[in-house]
């Protein structure tokens, strides 16, 4: 499989008072197209910091992170915005939909940034809504959706531009069990159909049940990196 993310000797430190707090230490990882991988670990273990850096929202203190061949440390603000715009999708714990826009318009927004023609946008948006089973809610406002539906719209918004990499930070934290499984099944299906690489930060065991690779972090270090055998994937 094609390698799309290479992390080499990554260390990330944050200034704290006069000293420094080391959030990530000497991380070496590689991710391939189509992975369905999760970072697990207790709070403060460095999961979100790692997602931040892979998502070019932050830069390494030491080491190198290559995302689709781009060195995150050397990207300008504009270049990192373009990388996120074209190749990366984000799903957050809270759905963060634009409240005044319809479901259709929320999903369409990502494509407006790419200046796609209207006809192409329409087809892509309807495809994305079909993936998540919300074509009938296209004209609804976010306030009219359930929590599960809101998160599915967020997934459609992230997926509509067909990014190579999806970064999901605790995507099921605000959902009940039934909706969590629904969301995870949707993401898994997209992962398989579109070969999108999914990287999760989570401590939700329901999520872990779907992952094919689990990377455990503790105090900023990778303490375990295990491939999950297909027969151990519970999928709910």
């Amino acid at each position, binding site marked *: 499989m094609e390698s799309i993310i290479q992390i080499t000797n990554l260390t990330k430190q944050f200034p704290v008072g006069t000293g420094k707090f080391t959030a990530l230490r000497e991380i070496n990882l590689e991710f391939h197209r189509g992975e369905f991988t999760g970072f697990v670990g207790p709070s403060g273990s460095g999961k*979100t910091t790692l*997602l*931040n850096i892979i*998502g070019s*929202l*932050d*830069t390494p203190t030491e080491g190198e992170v290559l995302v689709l061949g781009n060195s995150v440390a050397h990207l300008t*603000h*504009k270049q*990192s*915005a*373009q*990388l*996120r*715009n*074209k190749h*990366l999708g*984000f799903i*957050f*714990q*809270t759905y*963060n939909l*634009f409240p*005044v*826009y319809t479901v259709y*318009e929320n999903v*369409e*927004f*990502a494509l*407006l*940034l790419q200046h796609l023609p209207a006809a192409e946008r329409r087809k892509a948006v309807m495809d994305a809504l079909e993936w998540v089973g919300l074509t009938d809610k296209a004209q609804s406002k976010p306030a009219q959706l359930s929590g599960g539906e809101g998160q599915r719209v967020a997934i459609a*918004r992230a997926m509509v531009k067909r990014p190579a990499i999806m970064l999901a*930070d*605790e995507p099921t*934290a605000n959902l009940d069990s039934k909706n969590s499984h629904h969301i995870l099944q949707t993401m898994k299906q997209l992962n398989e159909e579109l070969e999108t690489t999914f990287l999760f930060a989570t401590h939700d065991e329901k999520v872990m049940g779907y992952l094919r690779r689990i990377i455990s972090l503790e105090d900023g270090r990778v303490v375990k990196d295990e491939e999950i055998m297909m027969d151990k994937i519970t999928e709910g």
Partner: protein
Amino acid sequence: MIRFLIKGIMRDKNRSLLPILVISIGVFLTVLGSCWFKGIFTDMIDVNANFSTGHVKVMTRAYAENVDQMPNDLALLGASEFVRELNTTYPNLEWVERIHFGGLLDVPDANGETRGQGMATGWGIDFFSPGSNEPERMNIPGSIVQGALPSQPGEALISDDFARRFGISPGSPVTLFGSTMYGGMAFANFTVAGTVRFGMRALDRGAIIIDITDAQAALDMADATGEILGFFRDGQYDGEKAAAIKEAFNARYEGDPDEFAPTMLRLNDQNGLEDYLALSESISGIMIFVFVLAMSIVLWNTGLLGGLRRYNEFGIRLAMGEEKGHIYRSLITESVLIGTIGSVAGTALGLAAAFYLQEYGLDFGDAVQGGGIMMPEVFRTRVGPEAFYIGFIPGLFSMVLGNALSGIGIYKRRTSVLIKELSV
């Protein structure tokens, strides 16, 4: 993207309605205020020019020094020849003789005995010369309450308030007592042709207006006049041109030590009008400055509140790969749209109110009593071409400035904490 922004503005009342209301009110007040002040100042200057100062005024030096006392004993002699000369030398001005006098107006009863008396301010103006603009200049035809304009010598107009006080009607006789040019006692009988009301307390308390030849006869001022007023033929006062004419005229008599030598004053130089003219010229600038300052602070705060409310929206847009500059520009574009809508609405409302007050005015008669400056009792707005844009530009500018200031926070946003911020 523009359509996307417009939809957001239309649906998000907090993003649109509040700023549009703020802008509309501000623009409304600016337009109405500027028309209001323009109306007041213009009316005041016109009234003073037409009744008292002219655009320029020629008097003897001695008369000019005591002009408040209407000292006709210091009048110009050989007035008709002097007026002819002025018309030749300065043909772009219309020159007219005026005699301004004070006196006592006696109202007789049926037996010719005094029934009542009152102080009166009088004007001798040119009623009868062919082509004379004097009655129209003083808006006398429009101010007639009873009767008509004098049609022959010996007829007078008196103020309506005075006429009512003494029960005088057109056709009644009145006697003017005053002093002649040579210090003797003057009296002359007139028949009231009509009564006038100018809407200015200073004129309406007690006034008598007669033809200048009658005034010359009554005050023993044969071919003499207290004042010669010059008016630009287009009716518009031009301070710079007036200054040049004044300078040239006064230079001719610079070496003449005679106190009866003529001297010229501009409108600015009389009745303390210089300050009012300066204020009139700068009022628009002052209003725009105050408006932009106040509105920018209000809209900056509105923008900051809106920015806080939309903190998540901007965060998600950054995470989705929108550049900070693009978000900032979209915020400015929104402010241009909102500012335009608010400014158009405010301008329309302001113009509607200004046109209404231009037509009907507001009566401040009780508030404008006394004072050396003639002021109309009914204040009216005046809608000029600048009223159509004077509020629009600052309305738009302050909205954009307010959002530009509040939007700076977008540049200070750290993307490294976006996931944390967007997960709560």
